């Protein structure tokens, strides 16, 4: 698959604003500072790659951005809403409508087909069954799995499973795509395919893409690379230039 790097989407509007964010875990009487005093703005349509060693806070940062966890202190503003202070119901609502998640282990429900897994992301939105079906078909087509809609995850390859996970993330037409090591469980060829797909979708849909990865080759495709080290984030601008 040819990969082209077109014009970077306009990124004037700030979608995320993080100020003084820290996250402390308590484990066995010990305090672990996973994220410390982090300030970060992310613009709409931006691709930010987050790198760093294992245990240095990459995934914690992604969970804070995705409203899956709350900071110990600081503000995580998304579209004007502070996810640190919002009610659980408000955060859940933002997650349901605005965030698409892609996980390293795909996290598909093993008893549901590819179509049903994608449909699961639409359940919280309360849209009609017919509309759900239509959007699921379109999402699976966009990741090249239109003919595998009725297959169970166990009947699909790793790459295909991750494509289903991407379809599940995209089917709700989110503003932000949060991907945690999306190629970590894939071979090299499949990794390239998935990254190419994400790149295309990012460009075509104007998504804000925040991607956690160990792989520097993948990270270099992002507009900015953030490196997490002992809970602190340092940013390197415009890696594509």
């Amino acid at each position, binding site marked *: 698959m040819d990969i082209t790097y077109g014009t970077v989407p306009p990124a004037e509007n700030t979608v995320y604003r993080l100020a003084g964010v820290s996250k402390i875990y308590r484990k066995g009487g010990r305090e672990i500072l996973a994220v410390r005093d982090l300030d970060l703005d992310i613009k709409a349509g931006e691709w930010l790659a987050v790198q760093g060693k294992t245990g240095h806070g990459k995934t914690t940062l992604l*969970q804070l951005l995705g409203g*899956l966890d709350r900071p110990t202190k600081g503000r995580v503003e998304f579209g004007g809403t502070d996810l640190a202070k919002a009610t659980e119901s408000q955060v859940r609502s933002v*997650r349901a409508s605005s965030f698409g998640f892609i996980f390293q282990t795909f996290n598909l429900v093993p008893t549901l087909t590819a179509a049903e897994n994608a449909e699961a992301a639409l359940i919280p939105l309360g849209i009609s069954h017919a509309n759900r079906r239509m959007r699921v078909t379109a999402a699976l087509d966009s990741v090249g799995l239109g003919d595998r809609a009725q297959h169970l995850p166990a009947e699909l390859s790793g790459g295909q499973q991750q494509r289903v996970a991407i379809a599940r993330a995209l089917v709700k037409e989110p503003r932000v795509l949060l991907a945690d090591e999306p190629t970590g469980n894939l071979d090299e060829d499949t990794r390239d395919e998935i990254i190419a797909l994400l790149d295309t979708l990012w460009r075509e849909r104007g998504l804000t893409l925040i991607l956690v990865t160990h792989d520097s080759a993948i990270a270099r495709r992002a507009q900015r690379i953030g490196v997490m080290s002992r809970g602190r984030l340092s940013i390197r601008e415009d890696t594509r230039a």
Partner: protein
Amino acid sequence: MFFLTYLRRELRRRMRQAIFIALGLAIGIGLVITVMGASAGVKTAQAKVLRALYGIGTDVTVTTKPKPPSGRPTTGHANATGPGGGPGHATVCLNGKCYTSGTIDTLVSGDHGALSAATATKIAKLHHVSAAAGGLLLTDNRIVLPNTSSSQLQPPTSTSVDGTDISHPRLGPLSNASLTKGRTFTNHDKNKNVAVVDASYATAHKLTLGAGVTIANTKFTVVGIVTQPQASSPPQVYIPLERAQALATDPATGKAMTSQINTVYVSAGSAADIGAVQKEIQHLLPQATVTSSSDLASEITGSAASAAKLAGALGKWLAVLVLIAAFAVASLLTMAAVARRVPEFGTLKALGWRSGRIVSQVLGESVVTGILGGALGVGLGFAGVAIIDKIAPKLSATVPSAAGGGGLQTQVAGPGGASGPVTGAGPAASHATIAVPMSASVTVTAIVLAVLLAVAGGLLAGSFGGWRAARLRPAAALTRVA
């Protein structure tokens, strides 16, 4: 739609576990149904005994204790006292008169004292009483004295006799009987010497319609033959109350029982009124013994009572314990299943699913498993009841006899001068032991209870699992994936 698809797929994936949980619930529910069926069977058997004692429509009976016999030897139990007559004829003394030959035939009131016939009318007027009828439970004692000194003195015979109030056919012992031959009493029979006899008595004494049966030296014509339920200890001969009153002797006074009764059969306005009826009668007749069906049930002894206690106590607790164990196992297995699905539920939460939606998914799966267990349990319950029906031995019930004693206990001086009691048999005894067939059955109540238990079991198991699923923080759940 999505809910059902997800539920069906998940149950199919965990089919073995679902079947295991369902089987556990089924055993508990099956046991509950079996115990309830057995308990209902024992209760039905007891009810048969009680119905046979005082009739179908009777809720309460009223009796009094007999007064002690008067000073002269007019013994209430027709105690015939032998003076120890020495060599020669046997001598029997009764009511101050001694006999050495012939037949002595007396009709006496048994364990119950005499009441005025007006008592039944007074009771019938009480607020919560629907109807009341008087009756006479009597014993006809018969001694045939030998004509010669060489002849052996035969043991006395006793026959239980019921003086039936013909105007209240729905109350009293005869109300429970089924007519097999002839007819029952009509209003024209009030003062006629006609009798209805029990089929067993008729067979034993070779009585047919039109035959004669002697009560208190009076010949009664048999106009009907009846059977009572197998479990009963029925009177052997029924005669019109008016004729019984004319022929019977009150042991306390030695006089005829004209205008007297010794039992009042009372029907309450409703089952809920029985307690009130008892209080009203007790207020009206402070000396009377007022007995309800439940009082009588407590007097029943024998294997029927033991079975009732077994079904009521041990069976119930066994069923409760098995149910608790089944519910606990179902809850633990459901929680374990939820623990295995933490990543799945964490992902769904990340997708924006409400905790309630995830809980309802878990609950739905558990309830379906519970209903499956309930259906299996009902089947097991039917099987258990059928097995009990097949293998259950006949129960025995020792009940206070309706005839109420009055048996002839006669001390007879034999030809050799030896003196000893000769006791009348059969109905004369104040307690009778009878065989009670036990027939267990599955009741609608038991099935409804089973369904409710199944749903409750499913909800209980699901709520534990659901509670655990609801508490999951998405970040923690997803960390478990990693």
